[in-house]
């Protein structure tokens, strides 16, 4: 394993009933980072996380979790919140958290004490001895999250942690993730809601159609797209229009196009000389959402092209 990495995966592949779900994923998650795995539904995010954790074995490829080649050997120092939340309905909130800690080697009594502290600190003190079946879905999800961190893991893996939470609880979760990372814990989470990743992550991987479409810093993902220029003119027509790039399109009276390689100055000179009358002008760096859509779209197009070629070859 490479030093300084909490997770390292090379060429992970997995098929279900002959249908590939993950096709050669490489990952390198630095220790102490908040790392996002982004992808559309069915991209292979959950399968990737399950393989990293050893819940399912990859068909091919290798992975290392906190230096352990067999992921279960690191189970004591890993916390995992699965996409499909699951708790025993008859257990009390305190016991559910303590039980999840006990599964990771934390003595039950220590787990109970920590559970009570976690619940009280987060305004759920009244629910310590309430059974899970008496709690709302959001509360139960919070209980499971506490169960994921009660044993103070070095790596926290969260599969779609924000789904099912209201805006307030989403904010709390973001805060909790930041706190854990500040304490030196590595946090990796999957999501298809981009703004969480944009706010939290330094590095991300975008998975589409079972492959990594992008891996790197969030800023690098954004830089894959050129800035967008939006300009509103007083004049509708004129010689200045010949200076517009080929991809320029007018939407609701505003010209939109990617920032030309030569920069904005030549264009502005042409507009002024041609009497376009610039009323509004903005140059915006695309958000992660745009980068995500573009990268996932490219991957889907490649996948469709590949499938079409396979069909042609077969025919």
């Amino acid at each position, binding site marked *: 394993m490479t030093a300084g990495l909490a997770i390292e995966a090379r060429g992970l592949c997995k098929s*279900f009933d002959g249908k590939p779900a993950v096709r050669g994923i490489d990952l390198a998650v630095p220790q102490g980072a908040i790392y996002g795995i982004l992808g559309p539904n069915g991209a292979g995010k959950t399968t990737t996380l*399950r393989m990293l*954790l*050893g*819940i*399912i*074995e*990859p*068909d091919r490829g290798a992975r290392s979790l*906190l230096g*352990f080649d*067999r992921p*279960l*050997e*690191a*189970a*004591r*120092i*890993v916390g*995992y919140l*699965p996409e*499909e*939340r*699951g*708790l*025993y*309905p*008859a*257990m009390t909130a305190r016991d559910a958290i303590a*039980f*999840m*800690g*006990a*599964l*990771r*080697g*934390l*003595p*039950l009594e*220590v787990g109970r004490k920590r559970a009570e502290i976690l619940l009280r600190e987060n305004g759920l003190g009244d629910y310590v001895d309430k059974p899970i079946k008496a709690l709302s879905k959001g509360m139960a999800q919070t209980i*499971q999250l506490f*169960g994921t961190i009660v*044993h*103070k*893991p070095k790596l926290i893996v969260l599969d779609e942690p924000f789904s099912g939470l209201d805006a307030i609880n989403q904010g709390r979760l973001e805060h909790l993730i930041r706190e854990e990372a500040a304490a030196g814990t590595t946090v990796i989470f999957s999501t298809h809601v981009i703004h969480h990743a944009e706010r939290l992550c330094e590095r991300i991987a975008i998975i589409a159609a079972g492959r990594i479409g992008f891996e790197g810093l969030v800023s690098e993902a954004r830089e894959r797209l050129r800035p967008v220029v939006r300009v509103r003119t007083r004049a509708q027509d004129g010689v200045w229009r010949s200076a517009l790039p080929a991809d320029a399109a007018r939407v609701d009276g505003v010209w939109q196009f990617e920032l030309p390689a030569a920069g904005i100055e030549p264009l502005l000179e042409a507009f002024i000389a041609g009497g376009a009358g610039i009323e509004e002008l903005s140059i915006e760096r695309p958000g992660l959402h745009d980068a995500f859509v573009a990268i996932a779209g490219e991957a889907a197009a490649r996948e469709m092209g590949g499938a079409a070629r396979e069909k042609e070859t077969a025919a």
Partner: protein
Amino acid sequence: MMGLWESAWVIARRDFVATVLSRTFILFLIAPLLVFAVALAVSRFAQQREARALQPVVALVTDGATAQAVIEARDRLAGGTSEQTFPELRPVAPAERIGVQIQRLLADSEGNYSAVLSGSLDRPVLTGPRRADDSLTQRLQLIIDQARQTRALGDSPESLGAPLQRVVAAAAAGNLHMLRRQFARGGQGLIFAITVLLATMLLSTLIEEKSNKVIEVLAAAVPLDAIFLGKLFAMLAISTVGLLLWGGIGITAYLFSQVVSDWVNLPDVSPAVGWPAFVVLIVIYYATNFMLLGALFLGIGAQASSVREIQTITMPVTLLQVVVFLLAANTLGASGWLAWLAWLVPFSSPLAMVGEAAMSASIWPHLLLLLWQLAWVVLIVRISSRMFRTTVMKSAAGGPLLDVRAWRGGGADAARPAE
């Protein structure tokens, strides 16, 4: 990673507490007792009713002295056996035309006579339809013989001679063999009955995790082998609680009955290995039988995704148990390939060996066979967890079948949570 046994302990503790502290557990404890008590009461009542209903009634058309002699002889014989063993005799004064009277009595639906005994002690005549076993004729013959004997010897006790003297001997080979077979049957029946009771519970034990979606939380933290083992041990512990309660009630009832009346006596013959060893072996074989069948049922049940599927699986599983029980029961005290089959087939081995413990004093075959059975427990748990991993978790089996490392655990010191 926590060691396999440590992980299994966490799973077992949760299952045990969750089950024992649930309201349904009280039902689990009480239901067999109630069913047993009701079945016992109903069967005793039905047996008495049935015996009374099946007791033939014979009209005694003789002179008064003969009728009295026959009835006294009948009562003497019935006193030594049971009231229902001999027919009920009702004296009827003879009419002038005996033949007509007999036909009328046989046709009398209110009298409900099976036959009519007429004539004298020297020339008795039994009139009635032929019974398939003709047992009525034989029993009436016994009564008449008894009456004739009494008439010949007189009524005084001295003239009848001394009653049968009872001399108690330490043992008799035939009696010993018979009682030991009963112990063997009892031991086998007990283990079989309890395992049948728990089969459905074992089959459905993983449904909870699947329906609550807890299985992924467990599978991410501990080896699947540990989940299976933990559940198995939890169920064993739960059933042991039941056994202790039921056994305690049984022993208390026995002691109470000893105090109240002396109608129950423990036989003075012991099983071949002795009572203490026999009891210990019953407990151990119960545990191995439970673990063997439990591991199998857990593996089968793990494939099911709903209670409906479990119900479908239950019947063939119960049939399998019955076949195994019959194999063990029918090879009791036997030798040859069928006996070897019963000893070596892992699922019949505990039952067959309990029988052996009652019949044979050798201990070493038990030690060997227990190791054999435990090896099968390990193998079945491994196979079940691999099947679960491949079919339910949709994953490759992961590691060789007999991977000892997986059962030892590892990395415990390297990866320990902060306390």
